[in-house]
Structure formats: C-alpha cells, structure tokens
C-alpha cells in the first residue's frame, strides 16, 4: 500500500472513530463503514482500527472472520449471494447457479476480473416460500429461473 493511500485510510478511520466512539461496541459499525466503501478491510485498516480502539489486531480479525458480510480479502463492487439452503435447493438452485457461473465465467467464491461481481453462497435468507432466492448487495430477488437470474446479473453495473 502506498504511503498516501495509508494516510487517506488513516484519516478516514479516525473520522469513523470520532463518529462512533472508541468503545469496543463501536467496532462493528466502523468495520461496516470501511467494508461499504472499500469492499474489504485491509490488514492496515484492521491494525488502525485496533490501535484507535485500544484492542489487539487479532481481535479485529476475529470479528471480521466471524461475520459473513465483513471481509478481509478484496471483494467485487457487488456481491451476489445465492441461497444454498434446502428449500431453495429443491426449488432449482442448481440450474440457477450453473447459469450464473456460465454467464460470469467464474465459480462461486470468486470475483470477476473487472471487480464487478463477487459470487458467493449464503445460508437461508428467509425466502423459503419463494425460492430459489438470491441477495445482490442488500436487495432480495426471488423465484429465480436460470434466464431471469442471468438477466438480473447483466443489469448490475
């Protein structure tokens, strides 16, 4: 990471700590903001957060690794999460998954080269009556067919 980038990030995190405070319970909101902006929380960012909250970097990493919506590895601008739980599976998740993989040319767990989309599985999103379902960022899409899923994916910027 360049020194300038580090300085910008440092400043940004300092502002976040000003907003949310420096107690341990401010950790998750701070991490969420960093995740939202950078699509991941870098090693440097984790250590900066740890320094400002007076905790150990490994504790920050522990929290990030626990929550599926926080990531310590770079992710795409958009994250597509297809439900893998049993009702969506019975409703035809497999063919939807294959169609998305073919369309994007990547497998689940990977990110497209242009950083547009990361593809992931998720556990139940509570749409069991309307499966197969997927999440794109915060938005839910239900009753997917392979064609419909590809159409939705192609609309993502």
């Amino acid at each position: 990471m360049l020194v300038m980038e580090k300085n910008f990030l440092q400043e940004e995190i300092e502002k976040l700590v000003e907003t949310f405070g420096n107690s341990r319970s401010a950790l998750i909101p701070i991490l969420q903001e960093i995740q939202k902006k950078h699509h991941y929380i870098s090693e440097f960012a984790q250590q900066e957060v740890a320094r400002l909250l007076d905790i150990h970097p490994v504790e920050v990493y522990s929290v990030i690794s626990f929550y599926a919506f926080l990531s310590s590895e770079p992710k795409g601008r958009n994250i597509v999460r297809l439900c893998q739980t049993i009702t969506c599976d019975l409703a035809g998740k497999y063919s939807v998954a294959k169609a998305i993989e073919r369309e994007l040319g990547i497998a689940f767990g990977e990110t497209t080269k242009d950083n547009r989309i990361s593809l992931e599985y998720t556990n139940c999103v509570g749409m069991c009556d309307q499966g197969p379902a997927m999440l794109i960022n915060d938005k839910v899409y239900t009753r997917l067919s392979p064609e419909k899923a590809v159409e939705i994916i192609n609309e993502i910027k």
Partner: protein
Amino acid sequence: MSDKEGRAPESQKPLVVEKPDDTSKIGGMVSMEINERKVQVPLGTTILEACRQNDIHIPTLCHHDDLCTAGVCRVCVVEVEGMRTLQAACAYPVTNPLKIKTSTPLVRKARKHIIDLLISEHYGECYSCFRNNNCELQSLAKEYGVDHYNFGHVQKPRYEIDKSSFSVVRDLDKCVLCKRCVRTCIDLQEVGVLEAIDRGDKTRIDTFMDKPLADVICINCGQCINRCPTGALRANDPRDEIWAAIDDPNKHVVMQTAPSPRAAIAEEFGIPAGKSMTGEMNTAIRRLGFDKVFDTNFTADLTIMEEGTELIIRLFQALVEKKEGVALPQFTSCSPGWVKYLEHFYPEYIPNLSSAKSPQQMFGALIKTYYAKENNIDPKDVVSVALMPCAAKKFECNRPEMTDSGYKDVDFGLTTRELAQMIKEGGIHLPEMPQTHFDDPFGDASGAGLIFGATGGVMEAAIRTVVELVTGKKAEDLFENANVMPVRGFEGVKYAELPIPVVGPVPEILKALVPNWDWLKGATLKVAVCHGTANAKKVMDDIKAGGKFSECHFIEFMACPGGCLGGGGQPIPTTPEIRKARAKAIYTEDESLPLRKSHENEHVASIYDKFLTDGPCGHISHKLLHTHYTPRGKYID
C-alpha cells in the same frame, strides 16, 4: 483494557458476582446443598469453587485458576434444582440457596457426550505427543471411560504445524478450542497473538490474518504452552540436536542452569512442587554426557555488578553532572519476553532498558571466550546449552546480535520440561541421584543470583549489593536476615522506597566511576517490581502519563506471572499455588547458602581481576556483556 472482565461488552460478560468483604453480615453467606450435603459459602462463589472447597470433584477443561471464566467446554456441567438444563459449574455464581447434584445419570451421560465430541475433533496419537500422560483431555477420556470413538475421529491432519517461531510450535489439529491460550495472551499478557478465527466447524485459534507465529507480534513468553490442556502448543524442542552434540566426540558440550528449573524439575518426577533438586540435577546432567555444568547464577551475580554499575552511572550523570536526557528509570533486561514486549509496544523507551545482557547471554559470551581460553578449547568445538524455565530464551539465543564471542554465544535454549525428558530418556530417576556441586571456574554462586528466579528477586539482589556498596553497612543491619521483604510476594506491581541515611567509602571496583557517595546522602531510592506483561503495561502507561512510576530509579520487569519460576518452559501445570511453592523452594535455598550477595562472590571478583580487567561497564565488559535493542513497533506487515 487491562481489567480482565472489563474487556468484553456488557452482553458477553460472564456473570460474576463480587464476594462481600465481610461474610458475617446478613446475606454474606449462602447455604447450598451439594449432593444432599448442606454447606455454607460466601455470596458469589461459583459452584465449582464451592465444590472444590468441600472436596467434591468436578472435572474441568477450559477453566484455569489464572484466567477469567469462559464456560466454553461444558465439561463441568451439574444439575441445579429448578433449572431446565444442566449448568456449567465454573460460570455459575451462587447468589441464592441452591440444591445441586454432581453425580446423577444425566450429568454422567452429558459429560461423557461432551468429552466424546471433543475427542472426535482432536487429531493425533497419544504416544507420539509430548503431553502423553500429562494431558487434560487424555485424563478426562480415561476418567469417563472412553473406549471407542462414538462420533468418529479425525483421520487426517487438517492443518500444517506452524514451526516458524524459535520458541512456540503450534499444532492446531490437537486444539480443542478451550480458548485458554486466547485468554492467557490477551488478559494475562496483553500481547494478543491468538484469537478464535472463523465460526462453526471452521473455527480455529489463529493469529492475525493467519500469519506464521514468527511474523506476528509474539513475545515468545510461552505462557500459552503452560495453559494449553493438550499438545496443541509446545516449545521448539532442541533435544535431537543436543543428543547429537553429546554423541560427537569432538564437541565439548557445556550446560548452564538457571535458578528456576532446579526448583521445579522434581515436579516432572512426581514430587509435589516446592522441592529443589540442584545437586541431583547436576549429577544427572553430567551423567547424560554433558562435559561441564555451570551455574547461571554466576552471571546473575555478574548482571547485578554490571546493571548496578550502570544504574550508578546513570544516577551520577543525572544528579551530579546534571546531564540532559539521562534515561531514568532504568529497566531490567533479564527477561527476554519483556525485552521483546518493550521493543514492540514501547520502542521509545529502549534507552531506559539496561544495556546489560541477560545472565544467559552473558554466560554464553564468557564460555566461548574466557572459559575456552582458560581451558585451551577451541571455541568452535564448544556447544553451549542453556537450561532455562523459559520459551523466550530460545528466541533470545537466536538474536543476530548475540554473537559477541565470534560464535553463536548460546547454541540451544533448553526448557525444564525438555531436560526432564532427556533425563528420563537417559534412564535416570532424578530423585535417586547423589548430590554434586557446579563445575569450576565459575563454581557455586550466591543466593542473590538464585532469587533471580522469583519476581522481585533481581531487585532484592540489587538492593543487597547496592546498599552494602554505598552505605558501607551490612545488608543484614538494614533488613532482617538480608531478606528484602517489600519487594517479595506475588502482588502484580510492587513499589518500595529505600532511604539512604549514611554513605560509606567508595569501594575499589567503582573508584574509576565516582569520586565519593556524598551526592547520595539523604536520598531515597525508589524502586518498583512487576511481573506479567499485563502489569508491565500498567506501569509503562503510568510512566508515559508521568505518574508515580516515572519517578522511580530502577524497575524490575518480568514477562511471566510470578517471574521465571512461572516461566513458559516450566513443568505443566503451573498454578498460583505451584508458583508459591516454587518461590518458597527458591527463598529457602537462598537462606541456606553461605554466600548471599553478588559482590561477595569470589569468582566474580576473580573474573574482573583476570579477564574483564577494566571493571564493571568497562571496555571489555561492554563488548561481551552488553548489547543493543531493536525498535520493532507494533505494526504487522
């Protein structure tokens, strides 16, 4: 952050109820019924404590007397009347009258189930594990009669063994996620290397970004090894290399032994803690094939001379010459865990650290120079082994700057556990050995060197010497039996003030440095002692804020709780009671010695006479006995 229970957010805190100061008041005691036996316990006692006080056995795994409550393993479950589910005894404070049962069929089945589940995730064969016969999981399995794998068993290793560190080896396959190491590293030591990473069946105890241990900020204290119930954490074992050196007829293998191992090694042979086996150990070490066995206390005495002189120089510069920027208080540098802690977390205070090497490294430098020359041995054929209670000493002897003799000053750091293993391998039962003394030219050292093993020991040894050198009086005149009680004991941070009412003549050895002691007349020497790096952090933060410790002149820091006797290389288990017993063994041996002050050690005087001819902190001693430190910072690349 240093408050153990204060770290976690309110919602995740274990339920802890403060015990009342006066239990005779109404509500101070609570009546309980344990297995139909009526007992009274102070309010806030946990069920586990109540049972132990009444000699009722409860199995535990994640519980450790040094650490905060976790309640994660559930092995200690008991039946509490009126509760729907079984309760973890270690995490249940008694606040109202309770009826509990510890040995019902439900409890038995639940515990067995829990142990079966723990074992199903635990990979490894007991007979190739260093914790064989001293493993808490193994004994639980025996206690609950595990004769087959009810829930299957891991067939293949899932993780690679992390051998990157000079000191600590991690084998995650043997980990049962009790989080004792996590609590040790964060709460007890304030270093924070390990935490639980990921969740569900992928959970593992790992470092920041899963880096190898050598790449993260670890002070190598090895306290995690002493807390681990299984073989998931162990010290980096040099036994094979040492056996090879012993077998090589061209090698001259010498061993120096630190004060703490001799007070604890008997525990490895089934003897209760608190018995020193110095003489027996010396014989056993020779019988293993070591050519010489020396006493590290000799260089502990030398450390007192060097570090004490350095302190006098610093005080003289600050008080008489009125020099700017003299780094005071001076910090001790004997504990390599503490030294690395300072290099990482407070690198701006490196000038305060005494430049004197630790006794181990001083000895290493002397063996390959002075000893080799005196005995006409080529230093390249000398293999120097250091018996230490410490995991960090393994890192220290591998520091690149520790080659002042022209060779690697100390070749191997060996822990108490590993020596006990070697003695067993050698077919020797230690308690049967006859007693013998240490070898010359270093001989038997003073009791002041011996008490380096306990927290406060370096300070006490320094005080005994400084008081006599400065006032010209006997230490016995000022302290009963020369026992400096204010710096003894297991309090986390100790503070003491020593007035200097009278001064005597300057002794010969220091004449080159100070003209007289008049400038110390009427002064008060302020000292502090702390052990465990969590306590060190408190003291350092106080110094940073300009508090009372910033006015101290000399502060002793030890990385491990209890000092070296509670070190990461000592026999497992180490608990508060065991540390007390080991300290007693050390202090008793000190009182029994004829020589109890470093400056009275004739071997020390003779080495200044023959070899370090320009005296303490002189030119030669600076080259061989002093070192420099590296500011490391707390960022991980």
